[in-house]
């Protein structure tokens, strides 16, 4: 039982990342009709926003300590971060420690900006082109972005820890009446789940309860009519692209402490997120979120040794297996609109 609860927690956590990326993908597909293969790269850039802020906060000046030596036997150069010198070691140290949560604020304008530039500079030229062209150009863009990040940050993962207060793990089992240590779950992963729920809730609230959101939803349903009513729907869709980029970026920022960011982390998530979108239903926002969590939990269950001993390798294919079954039996996806992907 405790193993099952652990895998559910794990699945919800993985599902949070899938859901956040798939939500952004669906927003872009639903509004602009573009299949954005560069979305994984936006997730990766988000994680590197956290890396960058933590690097900025640890920018240091050097002082020579004559009493100690470096690896070559020369006097040791001691680095002191500027923030520690300006604000004192305590406040400065705390700023450095909380770099990842602070990066949320830092990343939002950057990600929206990148989203605007991507959409206005490149993707808008491909609206009327076939999906295959859109996939090629966005995939190419993803590779370019990856290589740019690798050029500046190197190929190795860069550790970006969570604040000290949120490292360590939480004994979930004791709450549920299990033995101590039976169901342990890292604090930061719980934070990630809650954060994802808040972001998803915020996006839905924005679309549901604001005039802007209402116009966007109307545009998603019937772009032409909304345009005929004199509303500049393109401008609103561009803003939605920026928001989708910010959602992917935030998913990346918060993911940085879970696995040290590296330049190809986006690609690892991208393919799975596309499957999530297809399973949820192309263009369906609730579908993307539901399918994200569902596939995350399924993948976790399939990784259990008991299940793998019955069907070896099932953890590798479960998501694709579900996608095939859904496509065969219900091509529009779990919550897709009737008629989408159905002839």
């Amino acid at each position, binding site marked *: 039982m405790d193993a099952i609860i*652990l895998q559910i927690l794990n699945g919800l956590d993985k599902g949070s990342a899938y859901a956040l990326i798939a939500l952004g993908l669906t927003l872009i597909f639903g509004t602009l009709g573009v299949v954005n293969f560069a979305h994984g790269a936006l997730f990766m850039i988000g994680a590197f926003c956290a890396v960058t802020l933590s690097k900025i906060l640890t920018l240091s000046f050097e002082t020579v300590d004559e009493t100690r030596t470096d*690896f070559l036997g020369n006097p040791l150069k001691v680095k002191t971060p500027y923030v520690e010198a300006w604000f004192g070691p305590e406040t400065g140290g705390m700023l450095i420690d909380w770099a990842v949560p602070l990066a949320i604020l830092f990343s939002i304008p950057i990600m929206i900006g990148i989203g605007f530039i991507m959409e206005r500079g490149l993707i808008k030229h491909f609206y009327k082109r076939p999906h295959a062209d859109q996939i090629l150009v966005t995939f190419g863009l993803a590779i370019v972005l990856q290589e740019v990040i690798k050029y500046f940050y190197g*190929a190795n993962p860069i550790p970006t*820890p969570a604040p000290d207060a949120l490292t360590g*793990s939480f004994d979930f089992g004791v709450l549920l009446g299990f033995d101590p240590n039976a169901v*342990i779950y890292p604090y930061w992963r719980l934070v990630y789940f809650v954060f994802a729920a808040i972001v998803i809730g915020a996006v839905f609230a924005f679309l549901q309860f604001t005039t802007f959101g209402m116009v966007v939803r109307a545009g998603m349903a019937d772009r032409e009519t909304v345009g005929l009513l004199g509303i500049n729907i393109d401008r609103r869709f561009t803003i939605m692209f920026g928001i989708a980029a910010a959602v992917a970026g935030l998913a990346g920022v918060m993911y940085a402490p879970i696995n*040290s960011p590296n330049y190809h982390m986006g690609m690892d998530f991208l393919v799975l997120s596309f499957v999530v979108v297809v399973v949820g239903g192309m263009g369906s926002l609730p579908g993307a979120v539901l399918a994200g969590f569902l596939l995350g939990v399924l993948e976790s269950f399939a990784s259990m*040794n008991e299940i*793998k001993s019955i069907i070896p390798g099932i953890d590798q294919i479960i998501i694709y297996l579900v996608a095939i079954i859904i496509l065969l039996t219900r091509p529009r996806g779990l919550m897709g609109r009737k008629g989408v992907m159905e002839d």
Partner: protein
Amino acid sequence: MSKSNLTRRGLLKTSVVAGAGVALPTIFTASSAAAFTNEPTGGSVTLGFNVPQTGPYADEGADELRAYELAVEHLNGGGDGGMMNTFSSNALQGNGILGKKVEFVTGDTQTKSDAARASAKSMIEKDGAIMITGGSSSGVAVAVQGLCQEAGVIFMAGLTHSNDTTGKDKKANGFRHFFNAYMSGAALAPVLEKLYGSDRKAYHLTADYTWGWTQEESIVASTEALGWETVNTVKTPLAATDFSSYIAPVLNSGADVLVLNHYGGNMVNSLTNAVQFGLREKQVNGKNFEIVVPLYSRLMAKGAGENVKGIHGSTNWHWSLQDDASKAFVKSFGEKYGFPPSQAAHTVYCQTLLYADACERAGTFNPCGVAEALEGFEFDGLGNGKTLYRADDHQCFKDVLVVRGKENPTSEFDLLEVVEVTPAAQVTYEPDHPMFAGGNLGSCNAGA
């Protein structure tokens, strides 16, 4: 008016015969001039450095390339000479190799076997490389070693730790300076017994490819010999990034030791996940839960940050060693680049010097002559103490370092500390050991 006998058919016949006649001398001279592939004829000799310049091991590749450039500089008489001054063989004079200036070309393996073979092939065929060296993965090493055997050039392997490289996939033209998975197991086991006792239950997570399999086999064998029980061995896909669903089952498996047979990004992520799940604070079977990373690298330790503290593993070499050779190498590398070299840099620097030295001793670049000079060669002064290049399988036998993630690092490079130097005798095995069985060295191929 005389009638010409020239017909179309006749003209063709004549030209074929004439063409063959003209070509004949060059056919013979071509084969007789080159006794072996890419025999150097001018005043220089070209070495091919095949390292990952892109892909997940690019940082290790970059460090290898730095070491190669340093080695070439030293061979050509530049710099302070580094380990050429401490090397027990005095054949190298700083005037290139056999009086020829050393030049080099580089290729990008991308840590993919097919890309690595393609770049090695191009360096041999287009650039005339006489020797290929480098790499940061056993999959790549095995693939490129096979290619070099067919092409008739020497392959001096870089960072490759699978038993298979000098086991079932060994080749007469291939040589490995780096240690292997069996040696890691043999070196680690006594230290693990001393630290954690002989009544332990181990759970293995293993990267699903040649290196992971042989390392798991080696560590399972050496720890079971101590009396440890292996609770489970789980293969993880090489492309995995989040290991949480593989770590979660460990919590309730009854295991009290987790062995991570992972390298590179896999190791960084699986170790980070394991620490996040509180495994290090956990108590199982009345004992502290322990994590072991059998193959350690400083570059990887950097990626895992704080999480490596107190975790044991093995390594081929470490810059903090205090023998004259290591100090000389760290000094020349550190002064040139501003930071200490990695174990990957060390092994490829040694390989370049060993190749050059073998050419000098053999008096030829002929791969068969070079191979003969390397086989059974005993040397010292390259940072690992007395070392033997065993003739039976072309594997180097030398001391192995057991290291631990340092609790209080004094600098960003000071991540590992040497716990024990395991003597070569303790990690030496018979050439026909079952873990290395099945291959055939074959005979050397000089190509041409």
